[in-house]
């Protein structure tokens, strides 16, 4: 028998009759979202790899907080390598009464060694490729600086103490990294002009990069030579480094998007499983007949496997296409975080998306399909003969297997994936049991209510398991949407509101020691009251007692972050007012070499009282003993530190001063004159930083929202799958009730109540989940007082009830449409 021909015929007819519509839709949703993420990650990875050299603007780079070693330049010359260097630092620019924080980059003549800069001489003019940076006396600026400072091309821009001519607009630099300062607009100047600006002083916060290019052998030779010399604070980057600086924001985004897509796959998978089950049940008679007519079981299996393969291939193909489109959308939404040139999407990722789709289809559809193998031909004579259900373990095993593989692919870590799966399953189980109990309880509560309410509830309890699944599915989606909304709008606003009224709104850093007292006087004269001036030395913790610090920290913890970068170290006679000593004692006066550590960091790094901590400042090391742990309130907007040392500990090292102050809006102009007087000083406006964070958060949440929309669609697929599965029964019941005298209006009301209850319960569960997650976010992560979002408790259940009642109502419209008698005749 020609299985393929018959399979195609049956498939075509089934599709046309609408039998497989939901299955196809659910599969499309699953494949689109997982392909989108696969493509996104793959494209990012390939961009990094293929353009690594361009991203470094060199073949090899050494970055760090210290000026580059002169011996490096000699060695590089010896090996015949080309050299360049860049220095990056924040700087406040003031022109025409306007103020703008900028990220200044001073570049040497050879920069960039690889790739090109792109500039233009007017906003929408033709772009020119420049093989090197600005000449001495000139500045190239990012276009948004011009309107911010009211400048035009050709006019003068003062950087520190040096006036430069703004000659070009800088559109693209190859090695712009995704760190915090990349949000400030770029100003590029020539290295030769740097001394005249007066900004760089010992102790200033500068990011140095030494760049090299040349033959691979010479590069490797230099790499081997310099590696042992590098300090912990210096980083060697070459084109083989896995993830050159794309910024933690982007890698976090990728992680969240990946996990979101797995949730989408899970929900779609449920819809696929339900529709496959129904499809399978509706084909029992067909199979019995085919067996009766002489078809062998193997042939029948081939017939249905064929159908699903064809269906799967078509749906996965289309899904991959949609995934491609979605991935473009994701890149558009996250464009501010991304490198400016991207490689085109890869076919391997699309292929994987296709394979994943087929895997998802068979993972969720196989168990119901296996049941088809158990149909007896005797069913042609005895319709009641049902094939035995496939083992529940097989069903859940296949589904969990499919999901597990996806999670593993996302995280790349088997242990972590197993952890996520276990936590996820446990959470769902607990929530599922809770919902089930609530439904059972509802039955008792509803006893005294009107008939339509009881019928509505009956509809929900008809198949409790399916109802529990639906409620869980929708509450997950609603929770994701709620969190996305609250995080974007409320979180930062609440944080700002918790600040005391005249909390400092500006930070001043990089204040030169010799200018500190003059500045303090000037501030007092201007009636700007600042907090204490703290001396700041940039240093890195490298050792606890005799253990290098990397061996103590847990991956991705706060502790690890604190040990991978330079900390601001300070000394003080007395600890800040709002720091509370919770263990140990204040220092003995006159004794340097004592340190007080912030409590949470100490816990993360497992530091004990009396431990000896070794720090690296520049190329020098020093050690201090831990005498106390402090509880710190980070959100007072006054300077706060992880490490505070006893007076005298840091005297040997160059330092700058740090303070914060409150400046009302009307006095903003006074700041400009101060900045002109102290050009090396950097002033950070808290409002501006917050604004940048808000923009970043908005973009991230937009990208995640795209996937949440998929999840919502998948949720609807589950709803319709459930409704369709019960449709025949509903139609029959509806017909019987109408024959017994119940009005159509009553039936409609009962349906509305049923789906409103479904939606309302989902919304309520979503509100509980959201608040729990937000509570953890506020108290653990942001260390703020918990701010409940009361509107969630109203909006979510109501929104859930409305949306689900509309969707469900549409799904069961057939129930009251047909005349009851023909339905009953067909019994």
């Amino acid at each position, binding site marked *: *028998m*020609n299985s393929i021909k*018959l399979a195609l*015929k*049956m498939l075509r*007819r*089934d599709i046309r*009759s609408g039998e497989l519509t939901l299955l196809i839709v659910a599969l499309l949703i699953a494949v689109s979202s997982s392909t989108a993420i696969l493509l996104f990650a793959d494209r990012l990875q390939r961009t990094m790899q293929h353009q690594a050299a361009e991203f470094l603007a060199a073949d090899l780079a050494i970055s760090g907080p210290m000026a580059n070693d002169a011996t490096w330049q000699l060695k590089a010359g010896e090996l015949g390598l080309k050299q360049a260097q860049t220095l990056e630092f924040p700087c406040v620019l003031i022109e025409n009464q306007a103020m703008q924080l900028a990220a200044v980059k001073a570049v040497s003549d050879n920069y960039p060694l690889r790739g090109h800069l792109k500039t233009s001489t007017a906003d929408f003019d033709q772009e020119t490729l420049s093989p090197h940076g600005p000449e001495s006396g000139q500045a190239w600026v990012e276009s948004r600086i011009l309107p911010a400072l009211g400048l035009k091309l050709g006019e003068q821009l003062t950087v520190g103490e040096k006036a430069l001519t703004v000659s070009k607009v800088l559109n693209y630099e190859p090695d712009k990294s995704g760190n915090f300062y990349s949000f400030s607009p770029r100003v590029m100047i020539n290295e030769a002009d740097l001394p005249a600006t007066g900004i760089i002083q010992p102790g200033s916060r500068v990011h140095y990069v030494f760049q090299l290019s040349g033959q691979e052998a010479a590069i490797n030779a230099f790499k081997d030579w310099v590696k042992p010399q590098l300090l912990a604070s210096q980083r060697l980057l070459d084109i083989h480094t896995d993830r050159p600086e794309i910024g933690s924001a982007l890698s976090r985004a990728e992680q969240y998007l990946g996990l979101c897509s797995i949730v989408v796959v899970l929900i779609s998978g449920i819809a696929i499983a339900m529709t496959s089950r129904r499809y399978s049940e509706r084909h029992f*008679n*067909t199979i019995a*007949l*085919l*067996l*009766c*007519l*002489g*078809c*062998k*079981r*193997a*042939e029948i299996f081939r017939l249905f496997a064929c159908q699903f393969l064809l269906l799967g291939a078509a749906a996965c193909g289309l899904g991959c296409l949609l995934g491609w489109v979605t991935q473009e959308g994701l890149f558009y939404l996250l464009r501010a975080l991304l490198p400016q040139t991207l490689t085109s999407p890869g076919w391997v990722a699309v292929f994987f998306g296709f394979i994943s789709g087929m895997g998802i289809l068979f993972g969720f559809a196989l168990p119901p399909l296996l049941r088809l193998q158990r149909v*007896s*031909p*005797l069913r*042609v*004579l*005895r*319709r009641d003969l049902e094939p035995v259900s496939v083992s529940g373990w097989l069903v859940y095993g296949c589904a969990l297997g499919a999901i597990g593989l996806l999670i593993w692919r996302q995280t790349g870590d088997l242990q972590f994936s197993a952890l996520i799966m276990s936590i996820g399953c446990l959470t769902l189980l607990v929530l599922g049991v809770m919902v089930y109990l609530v439904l059972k309880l509802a039955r008792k509560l509803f006893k005294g209510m009107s008939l339509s309410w009881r019928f509505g509830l009956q509809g929900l309890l008809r198949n409790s398991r399916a109802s529990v699944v639906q409620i869980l599915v929708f509450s997950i989606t609603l929770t994701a949407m709620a969190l996305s909304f609250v995080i974007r709008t409320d979180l930062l606003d609440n944080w700002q509101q918790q600040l005391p009224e005249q909390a400092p709104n500006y930070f001043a850093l990089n204040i030169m020691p010799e200018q500190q007292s003059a500045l303090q006087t000037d501030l007092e004269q201007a009636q700007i009251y600042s907090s204490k001036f703290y001396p700041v030395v940039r240093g890195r913790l490298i050792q606890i007692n005799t253990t290098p610090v990397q061996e103590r920290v847990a991956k991705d913890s706060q502790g690890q972050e604190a040990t991978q970068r330079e900390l601001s170290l300070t000394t003080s006679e007395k600890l800040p007012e709002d720091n509370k000593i919770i263990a140990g004692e204040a220092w003995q006066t006159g004794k340097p070499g004592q340190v007080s550590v912030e409590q949470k960091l100490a816990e993360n790094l497992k530091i004990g009282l009396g431990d000896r901590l070794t720090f690296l400042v520049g190329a020098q090391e020093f050690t201090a003993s831990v005498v106390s742990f402090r509880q710190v309130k980070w959100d007072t907007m006054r300077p706060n530190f992880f490490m505070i040392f006893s007076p005298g500990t840091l005297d040997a090292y160059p330092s700058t001063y740090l303070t914060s102050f409150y400046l009302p809006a009307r006095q903003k102009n006074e700041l400009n004159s101060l900045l002109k007087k102290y050009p090396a000083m950097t002033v950070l406006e808290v409002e501006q930083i917050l604004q940048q964070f808000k923009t970043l958060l908005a973009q991230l949440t937009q990208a995640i929202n795209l996937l949440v929309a998929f999840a919502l669609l998948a949720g609807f697929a589950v709803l319709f799958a459930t409704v369709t599965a019960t449709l025949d029964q509903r139609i029959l019941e509806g017909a019987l009730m109408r024959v017994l005298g119940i009005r159509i209006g009553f039936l409609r009301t009962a349906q509305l109540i049923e789906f409103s209850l479904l939606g309302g319960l989902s919304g309520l569960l979503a509100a509980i989940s959201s608040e729990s997650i937000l509570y953890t976010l506020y108290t653990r992560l942001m260390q703020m007082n918990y701010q409940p979002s009361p509107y969630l408790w109203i909006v979510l259940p109501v929104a859930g009830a409305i949306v689900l009642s509309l969707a469900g109502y549409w799904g069961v419209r057939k129930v009251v449409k047909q005349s009851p008698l023909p339905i009953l005749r067909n019994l």
Partner: protein
Amino acid sequence: MQYHSDKKTQPIIVTKNLGKTVTTAEGELHILSSVDLIIKPGESVAIIGESGSGKSTLLGLLAGLDTPSSGSVSINGRDLASLDDDSRALLRNQIIGFVFQAFQLLPSLTALENVMLPLEIRGDPQAENAAKALLERVGLSKRLSHTPAQLSGGEQQRVALARAFVTQPAILFADEPTGNLDSKTGTQIIDLLFELNQGQSTTLVLVTHDPNLAARCQSSIRLEGGKPV
């Protein structure tokens, strides 16, 4: 495998002490017991009895759709118990045709495709022509491309008849073929059934409680409480 029979002498269906018992919550239920049958080729036999007398069960056993709890069924001298699943399927395709009370047409196929199906299972290249011819014989030449949903009950049963006869079966089993039809249409179907049978000398085994139908058969077996009387 081809099943040939010396139609004139060898019985085509033989049962010996055939029985079917099922276990229920209330204990063992004897649906059929001690059924001994010999049916000759070309014979028409009606199995009659009231609801629950075991008629459909007997039909299922005779057709190899079910396995007996006791006794044996032989078709053309071969004991069905000695055949595996696939062999029984082959047997059905080669020499058995079926007509059901509920027509049992595949809803997603047209009339023509439904009739072609048994021949397609066999891999017969002439399936389409043979199907067309038979549909013309049953008076549905203008309804080839219609699906079962577009046909009346009587028309659907005619398609089912065409499907049953398209393989020129040696045995035709019919389970209440007029059960879902009004008496006029039912009579038409029965006339058609016997007309088609005449041309092919098929052995007919019919389950029915229509006395007119039973009367047109050469012999009948009455079942009461699972036993022949």
